[in-house]
């Protein structure tokens, strides 16, 4: 009898643990999980921002609509991720060859305090010539980042300097301005060019 009681407690305990695990799964990974913080970016047609490109031209969402777009946030004082991503993008553009000419390619700074138009002009000149560098007032950078659902944050470093944490994914939009997909920083690089082609095909679908 006593043994059966203990077995019963054991079963109830195991059941409780299983239930706890299930509830935990449901809330964290299962259907009950909250919407991920990185929501889907807005369509370019729904965005509203005014920035300046590295040649001093005023730009906004309308600058991008009509051609597929590849865009990326970063800053020129970034020693690792940004030059690496810009080199990767340059490599993908080389792989695409003539197809790349149909694309808008934009590098948007999250550090407008240091990344002036001149700083952006010099920086982008070292990478593929299709890459445009955009900067602008802090408030406008916040608006474009919000539209892309991109995050950035200023982080002080030793000696009074600062660095920027930022979304390192590369965003792809179709010619009509619809968000297509993104290339995550840690994604195998051979997936990138097919994804860019998907954004390019989006244009064809939009046109027909």
């Amino acid at each position, binding site marked *: 009898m006593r043994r059966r009681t203990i077995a019963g407690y054991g079963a109830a305990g195991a059941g409780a643990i299983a239930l706890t695990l299930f509830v935990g799964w449901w809330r964290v990974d299962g259907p009950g999980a909250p919407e*991920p*913080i*990185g929501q889907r970016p807005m369509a370019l047609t729904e965005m509203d921002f005014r920035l300046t490109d590295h040649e001093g031209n005023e730009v906004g969402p309308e600058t991008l609509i009509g051609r597929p777009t590849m865009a990326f946030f970063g800053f*020129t*004082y970034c*020693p*690792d*991720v940004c*030059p*690496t991503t*810009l*080199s*990767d993008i*340059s*490599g993908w553009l080389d792989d695409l060859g003539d197809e790349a000419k149909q694309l808008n390619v934009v590098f948007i700074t999250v550090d407008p305090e240091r990344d002036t138009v001149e700083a952006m002009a*010099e*920086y982008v000149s*070292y*990478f593929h010539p299709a890459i445009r560098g955009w900067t602008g007032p802090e408030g406008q950078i916040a608006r474009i980042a919000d539209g892309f659902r991109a*995050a*950035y*944050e200023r*982080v002080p*470093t*030793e*000696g009074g*300097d600062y*660095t920027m*944490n*930022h*979304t*390192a*994914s590369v965003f792809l939009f179709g010619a009509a301005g619809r968000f297509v997909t*993104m290339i*995550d*920083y*840690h994604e195998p690089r051979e997936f990138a060019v097919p994804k860019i082609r998907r954004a390019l095909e989006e244009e064809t679908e939009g046109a027909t």
Partner: protein
Amino acid sequence: MKKIIMTGTLAALLTFGGLSVPALAGPVDVVVESAWSRASIGMNRPGAAYMTIRNTGDEPVTLIGLSTPLAMMPEIHETKTNAEGVSSMSAAGEIAIAPGESVALEPGGLHAMLMRLQQPMTEGETFPLTLLFVDGGEVTVEVPILGIAARGPED
């Protein structure tokens, strides 16, 4: 994989051949391979250098710091990208390397962050970078400076 027992002459030869940049300067049994860095724009922005650090000895080694005449504040940093795709960088602290193991400093992960440059990093030049180990050992490597858009040691 290259066999890592070599004399200074062979090391010099390989360095000259651009195949790797071995360094056997210190008492530490460590070999540094494939070191490279990107050119800088002026001196205001921090630079980054990459390499593979291989422990060829029988004892664990612990990398505790860097020194170079090129930068006042060289530090090993690590870039991390979280589930939301946000990248951040922070000091990596001490790096232990087990016997026979190696640690890769590569884009998007660990890197030698070269803060407060004392001179611009010019493509085609090299600079000495000394790795400091916990037992007082040092290994100095000559790091080639490649173009700003370089993607790896062969670029």
